[in-house]
């Protein structure tokens, strides 16, 4: 019989907080670059592409860590609907973390644009150029980014609810550990 974990393993916590900062930065960079005609537009795009690919790599590592390690269980007295919401929102977050950068990469490919990460690093296209496909992927990239932002806000509120109202150790399981 193994004792239930109190905390996420250190590499999982490290990945969580690094990606939290990276994802929030990406969401603000994305929102800013589509609403700007100034030099900031170019600067933000030059950040958005390499950071997006870095977050894709981190998301893959993180999913592997998640599948390879044990997680602290949710509190036994958590209402079933909240437990379900917690599980569903986590898998939604994983899905969006993986699909948003892939959509960005694929939409640039569909536009026939070089997928340029700067410093001469070019990624191969994921699919052949096609205008209608581009429009679909680009639109999905935008809407799913808003969905990710809303999910992150709900996740943040829920974490604080656990930490401040329920005080059940859920927030602490990600905040610190041995």
């Amino acid at each position: 019989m193994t004792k239930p974990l109190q905390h996420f393993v250190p590499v999982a916590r490290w990945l969580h907080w690094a990606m939290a900062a990276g994802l929030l930065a990406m969401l603000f960079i994305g929102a800013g670059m589509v609403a700007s005609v100034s030099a900031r537009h170019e600067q933000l795009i030059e950040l958005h592409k390499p950071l997006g690919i870095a977050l894709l790599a981190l998301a893959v590592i993180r999913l592997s860590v998640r599948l390879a390690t044990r997680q602290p269980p949710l509190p036994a007295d958590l209402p079933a609907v909240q437990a379900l919401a917690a599980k569903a929102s986590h898998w939604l977050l994983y899905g969006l973390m993986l699909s948003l950068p892939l959509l960005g990469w694929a939409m640039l490919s569909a536009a026939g644009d070089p997928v340029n990460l700067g410093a001469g690093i070019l990624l191969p296209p994921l699919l052949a150029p096609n205008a209608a496909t581009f429009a679909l992927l680009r639109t999905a990239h935008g809407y799913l980014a808003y969905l990710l932002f809303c999910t992150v806000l709900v996740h943040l509120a829920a974490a604080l609810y656990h930490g401040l109202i329920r005080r059940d150790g859920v927030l602490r399981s990600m905040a610190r550990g041995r």
Partner: protein
Amino acid sequence: MTPKPPPLGTAATLARFGLIALPVLILGLTLGYVRGWLDPGRLTPAKVVDTLQASGGPHPGYRRNHAKGVCVTGWFESNGQLAQASKAEVFAAGRTPVVGRFALPGGNPYAPDNSVPIRSLALRFTQADGQQWRTGMNSMPVFPVGTTQAFFDSLQASRPDPATGKPNPAAQQAFFASHPETAAFLAWVKTAKPSASFATERYDGLNAFYLVAADGTRQAVRWKVVPEGVTPTASAGEGADYLATDLEQRLAGGPLRWALQMTFANPDDPVDDASKAWPADRRTVEAGTLVLERAVAQNDGPCRDINYDPTVLPQGIEISGDPLLPARSAAYADSYLRRTGEVNSLHAAQEPRP
């Protein structure tokens, strides 16, 4: 497991819910501000394209500016003269394939060819290493304005009056009067006549860029393509679509050629203001020959789905501080998303329309 915490009083509970709501609100409002929703005064790509669209009328599937055009294909034959100044593969001696597009400014894909004296040429060079150089050039020596706000104001001043369907001359005069930087352009446009051919025109890149050498040296440049060995079309064009006809006829007799000329700035020349031409004596290097050999109607042509964003550049060419470059990039991206989402309505559209 965590022991059961002591219960909270009503006031403490409310305060803690406030603490939960605060970061959520701050993040949400900040994103709304960054996205421009809480900053209605900001000039956004969508506003620029909305204004272009309002002037050109609704033409689903077409570019919101330079809507009327024709695709061309060919190559660039570099002579290697710029290989020292720029590490871009396109300037090494040899051939780079090109997909281009001749067009008229304006948002109406059915505009008569004699309605404007300006023609444009956009090019996409695709290097063997996959990097691209995209450029959009115009047949005028200088851009009317140097800032994005002034460009937007000029679009608004030339919007058709709902009552007459034509731009309001008073608004246009007021715009030019309050923008003295337009003088050079106005002096040119006064004598400019709509040409009878795309082939006889010189096309200027207008915005400045930097060439970057292998050792990191950066030099400010502007480029243009100058027609080689063309004879003017004998008569002024007839009908609304004479440019495409003339192009087909000329290409039937063989490829058309332009010399690609790169002009280097002197140290004090303005590199961030497209409304200021550089003096004519600046060092100019001929980089090679642009050869165009085939034209294809744009609705099925290879240029249709290309966004000629002038900030798509290979290593070895960089944007300058010219504010029109990021503005063009941002507005083209917005227009590109709108028209690619409507691409299926293009097949129903007749081209050209009587």
